[in-house]
């Protein structure tokens, strides 16, 4: 048995139990994701999708189980430490600093790598061209789709190896939704592992290398995105027929 680093998953979760305070919302979730993959978590409301993302990012208590980043245990590390280790997180709501300008928002993303700011700003502006002309405007004045770009741009500024996205297309028009999914694929192609929670399950699974269907805080189905889309059980129970 020779394990090389390339076979170590970027992110691995084993039997994770956790939630707010003593109450568990997650009752044993397993996950593994490699650096070249897009992972998508889907499931009904209250299944613990966002909770799992927050547990990975150290925002709530993991009462049992392990979470490993590149093979190293990371649970119960504060989120700013996880950023140092290459994790990026884009929350669903309140995902920008409303009174800071777009440029300042992006700069905050590179807070730990101040020497990168200039180079990364150029990359992010090239990636999200609509942000260029808005760069001196407070982020609170932008539209929902533009905010999502700022939020993703902010997370990318730190050059993460793993990006966690919490419902990046929630509340966006279909046009913006496709735009965001395209961007997600591009980011992944550039070598960033992606794990996202999505309500728009079909579209998300279509771009997913791995899909995790959660229900009641546990894995229900885990397979490639295409396989899950093709599975009649998944379709019937979780994709609305």
């Amino acid at each position, binding site marked *: 048995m020779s394990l090389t680093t390339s076979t170590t998953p970027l992110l691995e979760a084993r039997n994770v139990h956790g939630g707010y*305070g*003593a*109450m*568990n919302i997650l009752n044993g979730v397993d996950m593994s994701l490699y650096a070249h993959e897009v992972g998508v978590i889907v499931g009904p409301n209250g299944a613990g999708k966002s909770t799992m993302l927050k547990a990975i990012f150290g925002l709530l208590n993991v009462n049992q189980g392990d979470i490993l980043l590149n093979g190293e245990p990371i649970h119960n590390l504060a989120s700013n430490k996880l950023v140092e280790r290459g994790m990026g997180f884009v929350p669903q709501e309140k995902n920008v600093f409303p009174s800071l300008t777009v440029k300042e928002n992006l700069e905050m993303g590179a807070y730990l790598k101040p020497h990168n700011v200039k180079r990364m700003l150029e990359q992010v502006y090239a990636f999200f061209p609509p942000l260029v002309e808005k760069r001196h405007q407070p982020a609170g004045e932008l539209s929902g789709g533009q905010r999502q770009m700022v939020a993703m741009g902010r997370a990318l500024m730190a050059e993460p190896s793993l990006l966690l996205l919490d419902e990046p297309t929630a509340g966006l028009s279909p046009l913006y939704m496709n735009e965001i999914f395209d961007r997600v694929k591009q980011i992944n192609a550039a070598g960033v592992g992606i794990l996202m929670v999505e309500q728009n399950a079909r579209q998300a699974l279509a771009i997913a290398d791995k899909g995790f269907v959660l229900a009641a805080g546990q894995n229900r189905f885990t397979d490639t995105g295409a396989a899950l889309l093709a599975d009649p059980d998944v379709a019937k129970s979780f994709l609305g027929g």
Partner: protein
Amino acid sequence: MSDSTNTRNPAYTPKDATPERRFPVREVVLFGTLLVAILAVYGLMGAAYSTRMLVEAACYAILALGLTIQWGYAGQFNAGVMGFVALGGFCAMLFSVPVNDAFWGTELPGELGRVLLYGLAATLVVVGATRLDRLGVPKKLRTLIAVVLAVVLYLVVISLLRDVTSQIQAQAGFVGGFGLPAWTGWIVGGALAGGVGYLIGHVCLGLRSDYLAIATLGIAEIIKAFLKNSDWLTRGTATVSPLPWPTPGPAELGFTLSRALYLSITAVVIAVIFFLLHRAYHAPWGRMIRAIRDNEVSAAAMGKDINKRRLEIFVLGCILMGLGGGILGTFNSLFDPQGYLPLNHTFLVLVMVILGGPGNNLGTIFGAVAVYIIWIMSEPLALFLMQLIVSVGESTFGWDAPNNMDSRALQARVLVIGMLITLVLRFAPKGLLPEKITHHG
């Protein structure tokens, strides 16, 4: 591990306060210790001194009950207890002090009444002006008219008032009292404090709780400034004394007996308050109040009454503070606006409540009496310690101590009260006798 026992989210239902049926060991031990302490004070300091201390402690217990329902029942923090206490003391003075013929026998009451009527009329005019937009006046013009009218009329009325009050001061000294029994003043004091509390609460209770603290702190200083500088009404720094007691005074019965009689009156008042609060706490009203405190969001889902309930509890607490202030003022037999200090009348009460157990009436009373005894006893102790330090310093280091050491020594008590507050918040946030909340499950 079964989740149902310890994962019950307290946010969902108001906590049930049915007391556990158990022998109250903690209460018995604490009150037993308190009794021993009281007896020790009696032995050391004599009956007259100790009874005075107990009466004052009882008055503070009323203040503390007022604060415990605001802070303990409802989570509202009142940083201006002093102001409400001073209002109570003022009313006790105004109602019980003998009638001043030098004032009432002249044309001055009529003139004062006339100015007050002008003030009322001016207020009505300004309020009317703010409604002008209903007659079709543009809103901006209405605001302008209202503000200009308010400024001009205010200046007119305040000038007239300054005239008449300086005449009163020159001719009659001050307006004097009404010569009524002291308890009428206590009741009116409670009502007045409640009224001021209503106004403050009306403005602040819908906002962050910090704002209530700031506003009450401010109103307390304003009430004090008003009482201190309105010489025509309160004799200001010249103070008013004696204030007649509702019971036979020391001249008739001697110190100990008269004070004991007064103590029994206060004890009855406390017993009545205690009984009524106990009833209210366990009534649906009390449950609702605690539900609001424990989870505003889910309580808000019950309807928009939340601010009304909060206002009720705040006003009720202020009434108790006014009442207690009145009883305390009459007992001191002296009305001295400068004697009202944030330390003695706000923070001391705060320590009593958070140390005794916010929301627990029995704990609050325990805290009031215990803290007051420590407070009273700390004064000679602080002076003694300071003298010790000074004498050691002078003899060993040839230190030339400043001559105001005594007043500085008393500042050490400020330090101790501050430390008590922070330490209790950190290490015993529920107090010595916590509010009893039984969890089902």
